[in-house]
């Protein structure tokens, strides 16, 4: 298929849900080094809610994203979860009235979501957050219209961004106060996004 449809979104949610079984404690552990140790559990709950949201009968991509955004907002009030919901709301606005979009529109969708998340949360590119991972993936899939190529490029970009920021320090949130200690660690939000991209692109 050369277009992204609601079926693709449902499959992505299923793939993410399946992946969280192994990822939950991995992400909790990553978060415990820089935060409060609950990123994996929060995302598990959030993705469970997404999976429970019945999007099969939604008439458009916009309605699907909107329903998922509402499910995400109901699942958590955490920073990462709220940013995630903000991204879904943006995707809903960008796809208003459309049943499908070409794969080549994934990049602008990711970029717009990234910008909305920056505006809501206040972090910038380079701060070592989930935003850097979204940015890198958006750049990598720009202009691609073949789903296999999109998946491959997204996965590669995820690995690149993880490696690039591993030895950087956190510049936002509480972790900025012990910036040196954050060198040699993955940001849990960035790690979560990359691992979920891996799972969904599989």
């Amino acid at each position, binding site marked *: 298929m050369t277009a992204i449809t609601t079926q693709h979104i449902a499959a992505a949610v299923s793939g993410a849900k399946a992946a969280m079984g192994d990822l939950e*404690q991995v992400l*909790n*552990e990553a978060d*415990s*080094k*820089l*935060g*409060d*140790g*609950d990123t*994996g*559990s*929060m995302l*598990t*709950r959030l993705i469970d809610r997404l999976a429970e949201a019945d999007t099969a009968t939604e008439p458009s991509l916009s309605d699907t994203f909107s329903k998922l955004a509402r499910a995400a*907002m*109901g*699942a*958590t*009030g*955490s*920073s*990462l*979860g*709220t*940013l995630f919901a*903000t991204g879904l709301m943006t995707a809903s606005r960008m796809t208003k009235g459309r049943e499908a979009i070409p794969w080549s529109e994934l990049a602008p969708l990711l970029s717009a979501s990234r910008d909305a998340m920056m505006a*809501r*949360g*206040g972090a910038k590119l380079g701060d070592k957050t989930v935003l850097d991972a979204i940015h890198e993936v958006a750049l990598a899939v720009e202009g691609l219209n073949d789903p296999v190529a999109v998946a491959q490029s997204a996965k590669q970009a995820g690995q690149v961004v993880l490696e690039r920021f591993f030895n950087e320090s956190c510049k936002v*949130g*509480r*972790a900025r*106060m*012990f910036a040196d*200690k954050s060198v040699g660690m993955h940001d849990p939000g960035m790690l979560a996004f990359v691992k979920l991209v891996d799972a969904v692109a599989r």
Partner: protein
Amino acid sequence: MKKLLNAPTAYVDEVLDGLTLAHPSLVRDGTAGRVIRRASGIRSGKVGIASGGGSGHLPLFTGYVGSGLIDTCAIGNVFEGPNIDSCMDAIRLANGGRGVLRLYGNYGGDRMNFDMAGEFLEEERIHTTTVLGTDDIASGTQDERQKRRGVAGLIYAYKAAGAKAEEGADLDEVTRVARKAVDATRTIGVALAPCRVPTADRPTFSLAGDEIEMGMGIHGEPGIWRDKLKPADAVVDEMIDRLLADQPVTTGRISILVNGLGATPLEELFILYRRAAERLRQAKIEIVQPLVGNYVTSMEMAGASISLHAIDDELATLLAAPADCPFWRVP
């Protein structure tokens, strides 16, 4: 690390059930039952105060719903901010027709959700203002005080704003005193042992049996330094020195809160208070209404925090005004 619970995912809701059963002055409300409000409801014509935050810190946040304090509280999962629906519910339920102060700790999730709730509620013509608790001196430098996080000192802002609202003051005045109380308060904590989020399979951090960590956040976020355990007096001395260096007490009067993080016995808190009082006496600072106990916890985390709330005549009057909630009563 053992816990008495039924299911990790039921933790928050079962806590709220028990809390409201034990304290009939509090009731659960909101679409998901994640708002605690006064059973008596909001008094018409009074400025409302809505707060919120993650679970795992009782008595904060929900335990301070009561007269002379806050009116409603949106509550999230353990160490997660409340979701947007709960924030909207908390604001609506606190609306007595004269506006609502949103008063909560400076955390990303809480801020985003209360902000979005306020944006949605503009259509309902509920006038809101916001004051964020930013008392944790270990979470930001002096130059970026607005980025600091809110910890135990938030209860002083609850007290000042709550008292002002009970007087019948308007929203601007209630907001002003809340901000003044935040500006006058500084906190630093020290952790001796970690806690565990119910859904996680290991503690939030590890600390050797003979180590402590100065400046640790109330979710286990790393602090300023980690070293061998020291005598209580030495720990208190450093905490008081850091607090006074951050904000010299020009009024000559303070209230002090020596707060337990969950697993530290009251006996040890009084050992800390003994030294803190001595240090403040040496600095010729008068202590008014000291508080010693578990006011803001991190589940089973061991350790303590000290908050200094520098008061002038106005804040002293508000601090002494009557208040009544399950965990703090001023007759």
